[in-house]
Structures are given as C-alpha cells and as structure tokens.
C-alpha cells in the first residue's frame, strides 16, 4: 500500500506545484491521475520515486518511508518502481535490447554493468520482456528506428525488467496516435490484472479514464479536488476539475 501524506512541492522559482496532497493506493489498483497541464500530475508521480524532491510531507510504501530514504536504500526502492514517460525516454542511439537491459541496473553490480557485461539470465529475461510486448525481432535495432508506439512498448519492457510492484506512467499515451493509446494502456491493464502490479497513471482523455481506471484522483492547481470512482465524474465534476470552458474530447476509437 502506498500512502501519500500532506505532500507539498514548491520549486525554487516559487511555483507551488503540489499543495497538501494526501491519498492512498491499495495494492493492485489502477489509479488514474487527471487534471489540466500544469496541475501537478507529473510532479506528483516523480515525487513518489523521488526523481523530484518533495518540499514537505511523507510518502510511505509498504511501511517504508520513501521520503526519508537516501543512497542505496533509495535506489533499492526505485528499482521496484517501474516508470513510463510521455516521451518514452529511450536512449535513442542504443539498441532496443540495451535499453531493455538498462531496467536491470538497480539489481546488477556496478563494475559489470559499466563494462556492458550482462548475465545470460538477464539477457533471456530481456528477450522475454520484448516478446511480451511483441517486439522480440527488434532487439538489435537502434531505438530511434522504431515508431512511437513501438518505443513506448520497449519502455514498458524496460519497466518489466525491474520486476516492479508499482508502475508509474506519466501521460504514457499523450505523444501517441489515439489508435495506439489503447494498445499501450491494454499492456498496462494486463500487467495490473495478471501480475497484480499497482499502476498509477496520469491521463488526459476522459474516455480512457472511464475505460481503464479502477479509481481516479483529480488535481487542480496542485491540490486534490476529487477522489473516487471513474463513474462518479459527471458533467458538473468535469467542469469543476477542468474549468468552465472545458469541452470533453474523446481519445477516438473505443476498445
């Protein structure tokens, strides 16, 4: 269980990205975070694995205080949390296989990994992870030779290499064609259901939220304005979250 308690984040330039954010995530949930651009979704996700340092507040994960961890302990927490990004964040000049293997970095020794030496077990599981996202035959291609949707699948394979208990997905489909959105989210849904991996995912399109979320929290100007089930977001709530001028758009194809 993940518990976020009274989380605040103020950037050095004075921007208040998060203000007193508190919520809980039970194991096995598919929690979707919604809100306008700049509402603090990305900051919130990055505070959970401390890519961004929270200014104040506590994050407890299975009883461990993430906010108090440092050094090796923090890296030990991070390696159990997979992360997927809007821009895929693959190393473009490296091969697909190397990108996937990088997911193991938290588990392997420094010297071996610096030399680029990987155990056959790691290589085998990297190939399995790629098979799982249907890209085994692309293992030797350079990452930037792949399409956007394929790159995001490689990123999912990289996250899988961490044997994660939790996956953070920061707008995983915002840079993709609507057609591909479902394909990516279905991979996440599959991991969530079959492997019992908790997923915390930020999304833009409400129809995707309705389709995949088991629970939703909404952020507005860094504050939680809604927590509940996806069905509870009606027109009135929608305007509350996105402002009076917002019009709901659909991601397109329904699954």
């Amino acid at each position, binding site marked *: 269980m993940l518990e976020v308690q009274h989380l605040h984040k103020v950037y050095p330039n004075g921007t208040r990205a998060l203000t007193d954010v508190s919520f809980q995530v039970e194991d096995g949930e598919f929690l979707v975070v919604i809100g306008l651009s700049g509402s603090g979704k990305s900051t919130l996700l990055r505070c959970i694995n401390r*890519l961004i340092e929270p200014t104040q507040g506590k994050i407890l994960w299975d009883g461990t205080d993430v906010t108090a961890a440092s050094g090796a302990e923090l890296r030990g927490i991070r390696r159990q949390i997979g992360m997927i990004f809007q821009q895929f964040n693959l190393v473009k000049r*490296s091969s697909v296989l190397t990108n996937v293997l990088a997911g193991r970095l938290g588990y392997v020794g*420094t010297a071996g990994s610096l030399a680029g030496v990987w155990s056959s077990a790691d290589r085998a599981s990297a190939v399995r992870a790629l098979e799982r996202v249907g890209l085994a035959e692309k293992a030797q291609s350079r990452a930037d030779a792949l399409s956007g949707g394929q790159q995001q699948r490689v*990123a999912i394979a990289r996250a899988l290499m961490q044997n994660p208990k939790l996956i*953070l997905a920061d707008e995983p489909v915002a840079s993709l064609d609507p057609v591909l959105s479902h394909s990516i989210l279905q991979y996440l849904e599959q991991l969530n259901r079959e492997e019992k991996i908790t997923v915390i995912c930020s999304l833009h399109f409400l129809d995707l939220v309705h389709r995949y979320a088991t629970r939703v929290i909404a952020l507005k100007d860094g504050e939680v304005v809604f927590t509940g089930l996806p069905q509870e977001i009606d027109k009135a709530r929608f305007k509350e979250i996105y402002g009076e001028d917002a019009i709901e758009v659909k991601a397109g194809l329904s699954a």
Partner: protein
Amino acid sequence: MPVTIPLASLILPGLGQLLSGRRARGLSILGLTLTLLGLIWWSLTPQDLSPETRPIPLKGDPANLYWLVVPVLIWAWNVWDAARPNVAPGWIPALLSTTMFFVIGWQVAEINPPVLASNIDRVMLIVRPMLRPDFIQPRAEEREGWVEIIVPCPTEAPAAADSSTGEITLTVDATCGAVGETLTVAAAGLTPDVPVELVWQSPIGDFFVLREADDPTRFRSEQPDAQGGLTTALVIPNAIPPGVDPTMPQEQRLYLRQSRPLGGWELSTNGGFILQGIYETIALALMATTLGTLGAFPFSFLAARNLMGGNAFTLVVYVVVRTILNIVRSIESLIIAIVFVVIIGLGPFAGMMAVTVHTIAALGKLFSEVIEGIDPGPIEAIRATGANWLQIVRYGVLPQVVPAFTAFTIYRWEINVRASTIIGVVGGGGIGFFLIQWINLSDYRAVSAAFLAILVVVQIMDFVSARLRERLA
C-alpha cells in the same frame, strides 16, 4: 521632468540617467567620459625615457589637449539626454568617441604606410633564399684540411705550423703574421681537378670564404694540379672580432675545402633536422590529444550542470571545475609551455605537457557543453530504474555524447598539430624549436623548408580530420 535630473548629469556625466532609472545608459556615459579623459591625460603626460624604453611618439604632445573638446561635447550631450530622454540621438557621442579612439589608436599603433614601400629591396634578402628551400642537396664528397696561424706574431715565434687532417696536408711559409701580410701555402693530397675554396676561421670560430683580390664579389677558387698539389698566395684577412685587442696574438685557421659532386641528391643536414622536428611535432600532438582527451573526459562530467545540479556539494564541485577550466582555457598553450619549460627543461615533453593541459581545459569545456545539451529524458528513465550515478552516466549519458566527443577530439587533434608546430619557439620541442633558431641565424633557406614541411603536415591533418568527421556526422 524635475530640474535636478539634468543638473545631476551636469555635475557627473550619467548621474541623471542613473537617478531616472536608466542604469545601463548612465553607466555607459560615465564609463565613456572617464575613459576619454583618462586617454587624454595619458597622452599629455610626457614619457619617462630611460635608455631601454622605446619612445611613443604621441606621448607628451601638448596638441593632444585639443581632444578635450570630445568629452566636453559628450558632457553637454549627456545633459541634453538627461533633460529629454530618448530625444538626444545616441550616434552623436558614439561618433565623437570613435573618431577620437581611431585617430589616437592610429598614432599609438605607429602606423606608417610609406615604410612598406621604402624598404622593399629588403624583401629580396629573404625571398631569394626562401625560393631555394634547404631540404635536399646534390650529393657530394666533402674534404678539407687546415693549418693554424697566429695573428699577429707573438714575441716568441711559434713552432712550425702543424697541419691536421691526414688526407690533405698544408704547409705555410710562416706560422704567424699580421693582418695584410702575404702568406704562401702549399697543399698536397687534394683531389685532382676539383676546385678548392679558401676559408678563414676567426678566433671565435666564424668562417669567412676568401674573395678574389681584384673582384670582391667572387669567391676565390683554385685548381689543384693532376697530382693533387696546390701552391698559392693569400693575404691575411682582418678577422679580429670587434672589441678584441688587435695586438693580442690569437689562433686563427686557414681551411682548404673541396666538394666533389657525386651525382644524385641527398637529404641536407637541415633537411634531417626538419624530418626529426616534424616527427616530434606529430608525435607530440598525438600524445597531447590522447592524454588531453582522457583528462578532459572526467572533468567534462564534473563541469556539466545537468549532472551536477543535484545537491549543494556537487554544485560547488561544478562551479570550481568550471572556473578552473575557463581560466586554463584562456591561457595560450604557448604561455603554458613557458611554465613547463622552466619546470621540465627544453624539449618535446614540456611542449606536450603544455598542449595536453590546454587540451584538457578546452575539450573539458566542449565536452561538458555536449553533455548539457543531451536529452534529459533517458537520464531520468535510467535514474528511475534504481541505477547509481556511474550507471546513469554509462547508460543514459555516454551513448548520447560519444559521437560528438569523437568529432571534437579529432578536431582538437588537428588544432594540436598546429599548436605543436609553434610550441618549439619557446623551447617545447618539435619543428618550431629548429625554426626559431634558423630565424635567429637568418638561415632563410632552412626556414622556408621548415615552412613547407609544416604546410604539408597541416594540410594532410586538415584533410584527414575533415574526412573522419564527415564519416561521424
């Protein structure tokens, strides 16, 4: 507009502008006025001439006082500008001050175009030998013999003159004599039918080729007989160096020299030095580039803001490393070489160290800028996997920077070859070490051969470097 603003500018130029919030303009006006006044003061004060100082023609000329009109006009303009902001045109002080800077600058630089034309004949003194670069020479058999002669005669007459080399023996009718006296020399063992050159060696070792008595533009050339014998007369030349007491007996020498063409060409002595120097230069540049790149590598990561911005300690390291790199980079490798020549002594090692240090600083900066320009996304992703700092660098940073690093290194190699040609001028080894000596000896044939060798090497390096970098792009 309160009257105090123009009044403030009347008291101190730029003050009114400063007070009314136009800080950049106010400071510029104040700085410009002070600079102009300082320049006029400098040009008016007479130069304190000691024997070693070179006189500056402009200094101390009272006519420079007229320049005061420029700051006075700018002062007046500045009051106008303070009273009516954005009305007084900025080109007025700009034109006034640049005119003054250019006229005084022309005088300080001692620009004197007629000199270019009046000494044109001197050009040929350099150009003519340079047209015959001293790199190869016709193969020839060189032979010589010499005999010692005391000039003038000491009170006790010296023993019989003693010839040295085995093959050519010289006998002189007198072992000593005064300047202007005639000697008769008899030689045996010369190569028959090969002309003989007569050369006089002064007490300090300078050589003078003797000239024809009736035509001083021609060197003397004697023909030995079929048995290799020669008897000829010569007048003792005045070879006593300035400042030496001419009455004091000194050992001088007469040389007979023969040069028999063997056909074909060979590397001249200087040509051999050039090859050695060029090889030293290339080796020096190669070592300096390799060591410099290895040295720049760790520094570049420490000088990259995006990697070091994490916490206060790394930020301090970043600032310190960055500052050191900037300072060292701004010092010419030639200057660094002077320091290393003092520490290490003359030779290529000192030059290599200097070029290496400069390479570390220059590449460290360039590399760190490459690192700062990389996509932060993959780094974030690698960090999120629980990787440590070294792993983040290896998997998130290196793949992104290696192509640019390689291109910069090759480019630096090209720069280092050029730096290594000149580093020898201050004693850092390589071709420059020979070049500066030939320049000082006015041996323009060797100088031009060295220039040509440098030209060829630099051209080849440019070509190779451009091709390699093309491939990387």
